[in-house]
């Protein structure tokens, strides 16, 4: 029976000890321990959150980088294309200018040739008339005094010849 009869001394000492234990542990152990544990849990949670945020940020940066890169590539393409166009334009312009110059030169050369030819023909006509007169004078001698009539006849003959020549040409 004494097993289930609480002894007053033990009750007293237990009350004193447990109250002291509760006080000491509450103040010097449980409070710091629970606070530290809570703080650490919060720190861990915060760190994980921060890591996730950083990862998202990095992904965003990566995407930005890629888009920047793509943009730069497109720009390069555009610049190259423009340069190619400009080159082609310059080349074609130069080509057409050269063509025109060549045409102009050829035309001038033709004109010169024609002029020279005409001049030469005129000279030749004059020479032929002269020669013809001299020949005729020599042939006919002094009988032919009226030079002017003779000259007109020759000029008439020559123009006929000229016409024939033109017709044949």
């Amino acid at each position, binding site marked *: 029976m*004494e097993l*289930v009869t609480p002894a007053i001394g*033990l009750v007293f000492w237990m*009350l004193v000890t447990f109250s002291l234990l509760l006080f000491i542990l*509450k103040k010097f152990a*449980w*409070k710091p321990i629970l606070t530290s544990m809570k703080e650490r849990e919060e720190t861990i949670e915060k760190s994980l959150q921060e890591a996730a945020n950083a990862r998202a940020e990095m992904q965003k940066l990566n995407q930005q980088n890629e888009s920047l890169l793509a943009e730069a590539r497109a720009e390069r393409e555009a610049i190259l294309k423009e340069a190619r166009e400009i080159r082609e334009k310059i080349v074609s312009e130069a080509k057409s200018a050269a063509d025109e110059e060549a045409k102009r030169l050829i035309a001038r050369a033709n004109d010169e040739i024609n002029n020279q030819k005409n001049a030469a023909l005129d000279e030749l006509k004059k020479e032929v008339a002269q020669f013809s007169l001299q020949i005729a004078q020599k042939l006919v001698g002094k009988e032919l005094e009226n030079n002017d009539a003779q000259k007109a006849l020759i000029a008439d003959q020559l123009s006929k010849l000229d016409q024939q020549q033109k017709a044949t040409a």
Partner: protein
Amino acid sequence: MKFTVFVVNCAPIQKPAPNKQMPYFSVLFSISRLQKFLLSLLFYAFCAVSGYASADHAEAHHDEKNAHAEQKMDPGKMILEHISDAHDWHLWGHTSIPLPVILYTESKGLSVFSSAKFNHGHDAYLGFRLNEKNQVVWEDANNHAAIYDFSITKNVLAMFVAVIVLVLVMLSMAGSYAKRKGLAPKGLPNLIEPLIVFLRDEVAKSSIGPKYERFMPLLLSIFFFIFVNNLMGLIPVFPGGANVTGNIAVTMVLALVVFITVNFSGNKYYWKHIFAPDVPKAMYIIIVPIEILGVILKPFVLMLRLFANITAGHIIILGFFSLIFIFGAMNTGMGYAVSPLSVGFTLFMSFLELLVAFLQAFVFTLLTAIYIGMAVEEHHHAEHH
């Protein structure tokens, strides 16, 4: 072995969550592996010492050549002596540590002296003597004046040792938190933190609810006080071996603390539930006394459960050991033959007691948390009535 009743749980556990609890139990087992080994070593040592002590005992009594000469061992008496409180701490044979006796009587006032003066109950001192139940009584049998015994008994000393160990461990743990602020826990916190987290998340948070933080210091103190005392009670040599948590006075004070905490933190819904429950007025005559009885019964059951479980564990272990000496008294050979079996059973029981040491501390704390939870719960659905 009538005492093998393990009153584990009477009240409903609100959230069983077995999966979540498993890791904590496994941690406990891995922690106790070393302890188990040490404990088993200690048991062998104890076994040897006990054998030697009893031989010593027998010799000593032979020398006296009195009525004690052919005295047989009385296991019942031995067990009862081991599980009850004492004014000296018996170590082995006739060696025991004397403890201070502090008495208060109206006639003599305060008397303080060493229990060695009683000479194991053979002598009287200052008019006091020890009776056969190890209690201090008047030498004069006709004197019936009250004696208030505030002695530092075996249980008080064991409790002091346990509390000092507990305080040192917890303070060093708190110190290690302060020292390694912001770093990962190392050493002691890793051992104890799972228990604290378990109590906080699975016991306090789930039973009390959002107001749990106010009750954490009490719950943790109760749990670790019971747990450390239970474990120390399993150590068979000097600073351990006392039956502190198996003493009704200790469990009574713990239950009283729970009773006071629950009823002082009870809100209006708690008191309404007791004195004005939602039943027809005519039923009050039956319901209200039952509810009031329930208020007292809850801590009372806590007190009995812890006391019965721990005492039963001690009795069983001592009972198995007694088998050696009971058989040894019949025939020396039989005593030797029975001893391996007896040690094996005791070892098994010690493992079981390690579990019980945790389990009873846990159950006491869980039920305390549930009772507090019932007292502080806000009944929003009550507004419908």
